[in-house]
């Protein structure tokens, strides 16, 4: 790994919580405006997390935090790998490990709401995993490398060759960002049948860690989106990625939640019809 690689990884490890927190704050304000409200201050997510860190920690059993740390640790590994210009495929695998850790933490608590959350989390992973892999494969097919640093060096945006893959990726991005209509496992809008799903039995500092982990994850995902626009000016790429995020917020606010059957079916069909078909056509053209 060269110096820029180390720099990128450090930038992610230190900077992502700030960026992610601001993003979450903006998300809440935009959501509020869409609902005709004023909404919280931009820094509200930081207040929340700061408060949670000051609360006492309730656990159902002493193993719960372990899985949480695993979740966070592998998100960090994935992000550091990505932003240091490393292997995209390994990034996706590390993300999967993180997801499994989160689910295991909820399984460990062994209470109905956590359990449903964990099962649904795994279902969601099953739903988005193919398309996520196909997105990576598509970037490889278009740029000839699995390494982020090589993809960054490509001379025209992969989006040009991968419109289908990009749309498919946007689709599963909704699942990954835990937005409605696919917000099956956490239900971040309060008062739903699964309470808080997978995070139900975490409290205080543990819950804060989950929040921070989500910030990291969101930044990583937006970084992934940026890859599709690559040789454009970085500022433009980031602006487009943020626009994507706003689009997801819009979808979040205009859609009721779907059942898991639809979630799995829709994302698999999207993966096949948009992602895989795109790859196959690209293969034929070449």
């Amino acid at each position, binding site marked *: 790994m060269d110096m820029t690689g180390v720099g990128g990884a450090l930038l992610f490890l230190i900077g992502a919580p700030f960026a992610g927190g601001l993003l979450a704050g903006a998300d809440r304000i935009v959501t*509020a405006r869409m609902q005709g*409200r*004023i909404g*919280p201050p931009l820094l*509200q997510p930081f*207040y*929340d997390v700061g408060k949670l860190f000051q609360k006492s920690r*309730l656990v159902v059993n002493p193993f719960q935090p372990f899985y949480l740390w695993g979740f966070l640790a592998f998100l960090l590994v994935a992000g550091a790998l990505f932003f240091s210009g490393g292997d995209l495929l390994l990034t996706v695998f590390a993300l999967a490990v993180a997801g499994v850790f989160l689910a295991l933490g909820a399984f460990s608590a062994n209470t109905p709401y956590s359990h449903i959350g964990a099962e649904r989390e795994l279902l969601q992973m099953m739903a988005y995993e193919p398309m996520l892999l196909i997105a990576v494969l598509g970037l490889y097919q278009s740029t000839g490398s699995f390494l982020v640093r090589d993809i960054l060096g490509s001379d025209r945006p992969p989006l040009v060759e991968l419109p289908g893959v990009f749309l498919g990726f946007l689709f599963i991005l909704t699942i990954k960002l835990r937005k409605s209509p696919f917000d099956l496992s956490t239900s971040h809008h309060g008062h*739903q049948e699964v309470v808080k799903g997978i995070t139900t039995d975490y409290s205080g500092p543990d*819950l804060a860690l989950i929040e921070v982990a989500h910030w990291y994850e969101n930044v990583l995902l937006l970084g992934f989106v940026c890859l599709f626009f690559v040789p454009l000016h970085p500022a433009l790429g980031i602006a487009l990625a943020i626009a994507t995020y706003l689009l997801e917020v819009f979808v979040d606010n205009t859609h009721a939640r779907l059942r898991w059957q639809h979630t799995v079916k829709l994302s698999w069909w999207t993966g096949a019809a948009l992602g895989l078909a795109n790859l196959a056509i690209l293969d034929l053209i070449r």
Partner: protein
Amino acid sequence: MSLFKKSPWLLHYNCSSCNGCDIEVLAALTPMYDLERFGIINTGNPKHADVLLVTGSVNDQNLEVIRSLYAQMPDPKVVVGVGICALSGGIFAQCYNVHGGAAAAVPVDLYVPGCAARPESIIDGVIKAVEILQQKADAMRGRRRTATAAAREAA
């Protein structure tokens, strides 16, 4: 930092209210009043909550429930009794199975009067309760600090 003031998360529990107060609580959460301005979120989960909003009177059925919910809230936490019923049992006070107001089950920090309590006064109550929450948090931090200092001295 006074973070507790900036992000009080609610848990709303209906003991055996007539539903009047609950409707007002929910009204307070509508875009009209936009509680999220103050960082307030209705979590629906005691493990995530700082403020317990209780409506209605405590009876045989819900005595254990509200105690259990209270026990599952991490410290620091405050309880707000909303409506006359939560204060004294209100019009249900004389029922055969009613134990009284919320205080019959859990320590209540603040009452919001009214039958039903108006959304504005509920919001006002929550904002006041948050002051108490912050005091509790400061006290907790002080206790923790003295405890570690004592431990260090002992070592």
